[in-house]
């Protein structure tokens, strides 16, 4: 396949994963608000930069007390949250956070998201799993067709 659909769609993406700890434990309601603020912050920055938001910004949190999912597609609708946290407070867990956006390249998306993640760092200790950057990598191990 010579065609790259990501280029065709003129889209960029970035994703990151982090373990988090909260000292003291963060009330679930506050955690929801914090995640929504994170996602909204990305949406606002994208809109400022591109004049529109076309794509998907999403985060998923896994904790021993359940999960929390926040998605943003449209600034008028705002973040949409599915809260399946079963306890009143959370002290640790894992966050997966990604975005794919039209009109931005991978680097732009990464910059925006890394900037926005500071929203969380005021309340959570984050241990971000850095992904190896090797953008020119050819996926030669996938070359079976």
């Amino acid at each position, binding site marked *: *396949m010579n*065609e*790259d*659909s*990501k280029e*065709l*769609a*003129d*889209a960029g*993406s*970035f*994703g*990151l*994963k982090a373990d988090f700890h909260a000292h003291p434990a963060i009330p679930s309601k506050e955690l929801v608000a914090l995640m929504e603020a994170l996602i909204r912050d990305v949406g606002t920055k994208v809109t400022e930069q591109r004049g*529109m938001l*076309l*794509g*998907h910004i*999403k*985060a*998923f949190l*896994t904790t021993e007390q359940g*999960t929390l*999912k926040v*998605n943003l*597609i*449209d600034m008028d*609708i705002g973040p949409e949250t599915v809260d*399946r946290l079963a306890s009143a407070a959370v002290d640790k867990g894992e966050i*997966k*956070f*990604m*975005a*794919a956006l*039209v009109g931005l390249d991978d680097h732009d998306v990464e910059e925006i998201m890394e900037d926005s993640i500071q929203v969380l760092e005021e309340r959570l200790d984050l241990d971000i*799993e850095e*992904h190896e950057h090797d953008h020119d990598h050819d*996926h030669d191990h*996938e*070359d*079976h*067709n």
Partner: protein
Amino acid sequence: MIICQLAGFLGSGKTTLLVRLGSELSKAGKKVAIIVNEVGEIGVDGAVIDSYGLKSVEITEGCICCSLSGSLQNTLRAITREYKPDIIMIEPTGIALPSIVSKLVRTSMVGEERMYTICLIDAFRALKLFKEANLFVSRQIAGADIVAVNKIDLVDDDVKEKVAQMIGEMSPQSKLVFISAKTGDGVAPLVKLLEEG
């Protein structure tokens, strides 16, 4: 074995529909396997799907319709051989071309009895999408067996009609259905289709 691709632009509701269909089909006693692809280095959807007790394999860091086409075919073969599912559902990224994914499924020779491509379109954003990314979105829709106009809980009949008309022009041979993956409205016929093959 049935293979069903749930395609559609970024955020159109693929994972939401997939979780709903997967849960219904599992309840009906079907063995369901899921392949989900995310463009980013780190994906979110695999974890979301797993949290609903479904079985998924997540392919990340590229697109299964281009750079990771070999990975898709190998994963299909491995799942078929080791898990022997009744149904395999594939969620490509929101920026994949479904027609290429179908071709890759067919040439991977896993012996499926039937393959369906369902392409979702977000009714709430459709008119904006047709304006801002017309060429790409029309290529995604073209040739789908079923185009599912999703999120109908967010729009009125007027918008539904306009969207239907535009899709009719882009892919006249596709069957058109109106659904809400969120509320479950209109989803039962899709469950039935996959249940019966």
